[in-house]
């Protein structure tokens, strides 16, 4: 990572490329208005999309983690039942009774499931994380479709090199999903990227009862996996097969100049693409 280069500045400039890139000469005026018209159309399209409460959406997104754990528990239950190889009439009758139960018992509350996930053995833990990544992968695939379909004039798909794909993720995908952009993007121009989000929205209000600790960080970590899946999903839909992409989430310290957020750490997504 020696030739890491900070392209944050250019990323900011990309915010309004039609203004920044084209020097407004007299000949360009016509094109400018054309661009502006496209921008305007995009604005209209985005306003026409159904709106959903940010809070409700974040809650639902976060509930995916305890949900995945609940699925894992149910799966475990089924397996152990099969293992027991129950031939006797009584247990079969009991099982049938359970099947016709109108409302199955509720899953434990979310905070308990999160704790169970933290305490689960590695194999189980990984299965849950895979499930979460798959959810994110699906979302990522569809979100590309949505953003590309929206006829976005900021996107040039003719010469989509890796860098502009990553910028697309940092800017458009992140804004669509988390209502903010990635704070910083670093690359070595050889297929390795670091995406820094210093206040990753879904986890901001999370905290355990005690002081901030390693345990808290580990418990919150599964909540990053959906975003990992989203990144892989977007890359897959643009033509980088998931087996060529490595994406890992980890914690980073927040830079000093950033205002203090309630969660202690920022998040770094490490993306490695083999070509």
């Amino acid at each position, binding site marked *: 990572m020696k030739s890491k280069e900070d392209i944050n500045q250019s990323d900011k400039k990309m915010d309004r490329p039609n203004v920044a890139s084209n020097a407004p000469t007299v000949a360009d005026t016509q094109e400018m208005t054309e661009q502006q018209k496209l921008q305007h159309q995009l604005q209209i399209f985005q306003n026409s999309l159904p709106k959903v409460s940010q809070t409700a959406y974040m809650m639902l997104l976060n509930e995916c983690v305890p949900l995945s754990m609940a699925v894992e528990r149910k799966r475990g239950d089924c397996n152990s039942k099969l293992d027991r190889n129950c031939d006797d009439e009584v247990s079969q009758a009991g099982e049938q009774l359970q099947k016709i139960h109108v409302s199955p018992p509720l899953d434990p509350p979310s*905070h308990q499931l999160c704790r169970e996930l933290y305490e689960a053995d590695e194999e189980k833990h990984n299965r849950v994380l895979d499930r979460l990544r798959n959810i994110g992968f699906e979302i990522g695939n569809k979100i590309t479709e949505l953003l590309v379909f929206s006829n976005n004039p900021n996107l040039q798909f003719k010469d989509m090199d890796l860098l502009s794909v990553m910028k697309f993720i940092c800017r458009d995908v992140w804004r669509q999903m988390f209502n903010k952009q990635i704070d910083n993007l670093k690359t070595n121009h050889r297929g390795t990227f670091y995406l820094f989000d210093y206040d990753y929205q879904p986890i901001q*209000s999370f905290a355990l009862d*005690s002081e901030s600790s390693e345990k808290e960080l580990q418990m919150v970590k599964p909540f990053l996996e959906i975003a990992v899946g989203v990144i892989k999903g977007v890359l897959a839909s643009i033509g980088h097969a998931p087996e060529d992409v490595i994406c890992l989430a980890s914690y980073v310290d927040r830079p000093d100049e950033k205002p203090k957020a309630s969660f202690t750490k920022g998040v770094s997504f490490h993306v490695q693409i083999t070509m």
Partner: protein
Amino acid sequence: MAIYSFWIFDKHCNCIFDREWTLISNSASGTINSKQTEETAKLLYGMIYSLRSVTQKLSRDDTANDVRSISIGKYRIHTYCTASGLWFVLLSDYKQASYAHVLQYIHSHIYVKYVTHNILSPYDFAANENETRGQGFRKIGNRNFISSLEAFLAPMIAQ
């Protein structure tokens, strides 16, 4: 104006948070979850509960007739009850008639933000049937909640 203590009760009659600034040890910092406050919490809950049921019976029509504050010899008790069964209770001196806006702010901007939206924290502090009806012992220990509540209430603590 000065406030003396702050309490939160949940729908199972449990005290899930308490903070007193009048204890002799260190009046500036206050204490959390001290044993001696347990009895006070029960008495406080009992008083507000019975007064609430009386006032609701005294109401002539169906409109809400809730207790907002109770004045007794030494201090005034301000209550704010949410529809979800949470009670926010603040003990203060007589100088200010209503702390309704303060309690409302604590609920909407501090409690909801740091307890309800925190997926690692339970939203119902009674983990099982045995901990309902005032038998619960779990309290809010969340550092974000405590620090922002302290920051918010600090200017009102007795000089």
